[in-house]
């Protein structure tokens, strides 16, 4: 059974159809690529899946349950984590706190626990701190634990976002252009990180322009253009698809 399925998913903004009847599915433990030219609706699709936009039409199901009427925080709690194309970290807080926010959905202590410093809170905070250190070790961020996020270079901020998403123990991780703006060594370590994430059993929906990365990591690839899915299959398959070539190269008179 697939983890995430969208059926005939459509999102309109006024007269513009940003996502047009897209069917998509991500299975357990696989990395799926989502590619397409700029403005093809990839980010909008992610925002509809994660509940930031309500779909105009169609359905999103996660583990067989419809989620398109859920709010973003509910969807997060169900097990979909994400990163943003234009990094959205809490810049004035430390790396530690940013990652801690990812664990928010697993906290159980209440306001009175906080005010009275109950045993439950202390236990939970201990657990959370251990888990954060685990995630920081996993992502290689341990040395920057207490650094303010705004003092980190761009590439490292991207890793912090991934760490934050991992902290929530998602079943599916949606990454919106994680490699954009990274240098080649950073890209290399990012690829290693993502394959290690997959090895822990987390599925990944990877939106990326960096084709070598998509080719190396993806089990399957979906191609969007003008909001429509124009192709799907293994990387080798879509590479041969004339519709995809046309979308990217603009042959046949259509514009890029």
């Amino acid at each position, binding site marked *: 059974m697939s983890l995430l399925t969208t059926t005939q998913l459509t999102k309109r903004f006024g007269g513009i159809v940003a996502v047009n009847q897209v069917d998509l599915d991500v299975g357990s433990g696989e990395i799926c690529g989502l590619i397409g030219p700029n403005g093809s609706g990839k980010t909008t699709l992610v*925002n509809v899946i994660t509940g930031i936009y309500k779909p105009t039409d169609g359905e999103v199901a996660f583990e067989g349950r419809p989620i398109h009427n859920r709010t973003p925080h509910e969807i997060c709690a169900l097990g979909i984590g994400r990163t943003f194309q234009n990094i959205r970290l809490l810049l004035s807080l430390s790396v530690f706190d940013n990652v801690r926010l990812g664990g928010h959905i697993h906290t159980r202590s209440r306001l009175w626990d906080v005010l009275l410093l109950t045993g439950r809170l202390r236990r939970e905070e201990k657990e959370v701190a251990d888990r954060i250190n685990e995630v920081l070790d996993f992502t290689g961020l341990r040395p920057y634990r207490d650094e303010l996020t705004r003092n980190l270079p761009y590439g490292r901020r991207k890793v912090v976002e991934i760490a934050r998403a991992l902290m929530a123990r998602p079943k599916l991780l949606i990454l919106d252009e994680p490699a954009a703006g990274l240098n080649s060594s950073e890209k290399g370590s990012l690829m290693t990180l993502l394959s290690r994430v997959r090895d822990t059993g987390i599925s990944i929906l990877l939106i990326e322009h960096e084709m070598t990365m998509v080719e190396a990591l993806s089990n399957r690839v979906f191609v969007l253009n003008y909001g429509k899915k124009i192709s799907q299959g293994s990387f080798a398959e879509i590479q041969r698809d004339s519709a995809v070539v046309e979308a990217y190269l603009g042959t046949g008179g259509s514009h890029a």
Partner: protein
Amino acid sequence: MGFEAILQILIQGLNMGLIYALAALGISLIWNATGLFNFAQGDLLTVGGYVMLSTFSHWALPYPFAFLFTCGVMGLAGYLLSQGYFFPMFSQGLHPDVIVIGTIALTVLVQNGILLLWGPHAQRFTTPLGDSPVHVGEVIVMPYYLWNIAVVVVLVALLQVFFKKSILGIAMRAVAQRPVTASLMGVRTDRLVALTFLLATGLAAVGGILIAPVIPLIPEMGGLVALKAFAAVLIGGLGSFAGALVGGAIVGVAEVVFATLVVSTYKDVFIFAILIAFLLVRPRGIFSAEISEKV
């Protein structure tokens, strides 16, 4: 209620609305250029009124000269305020809330400064048209209502031309919409922000001059008008000139109508209730496009 009575109420409401609109215009102007909500705009209006009081009533300059002199003095004050206070705060990258609170602190300074310079007693001057009511059938119109309407119409027309046609105006709009891009294109942001303050305080001077015949000058006057002007500017749509005028009219008419038909003591409650209800339904006011955040 007779037709004349209804007309009279509408005239009174529009008259007050015009005054709220004048304060609202200045708030919109500064908001557009800097993203700063100027809580002191009402008090700047009061200062304008007092400067006019000195030049027109005390020094006995002819009305047009006093008018221009007041606008000049206030414009200069606005320029200095921007260059010496607000722009440095912007360029330090202070949290926007801190700068907003700066405008709130400015209200305290202005009100107490007026008290010190011009004294506590309520004062008033009028327009060259005098104070004799004009009777149109049963309906009574004060000459300064007409004067105020005329000045505001000319003023808004001038502003429109300035922002649509002149290079400076276009540059200011560019700064308002894309500050970073504009500065990359070689626009001097600090100058333009200062110019915006100059315009807004000049506008406040006109506002003060037009208000004084209707509402007597007391040090706290601007703060009191400002509360309604805030309602007007948010109902009309922050950043829109048409919105400021329409919002002012709505607030002015609504309060007089409510005071007449329901109960006068709760008219402010009514205005604020309208504001809250309205914003819940249409959070950005009448004349403002929904701006969605890029995620």
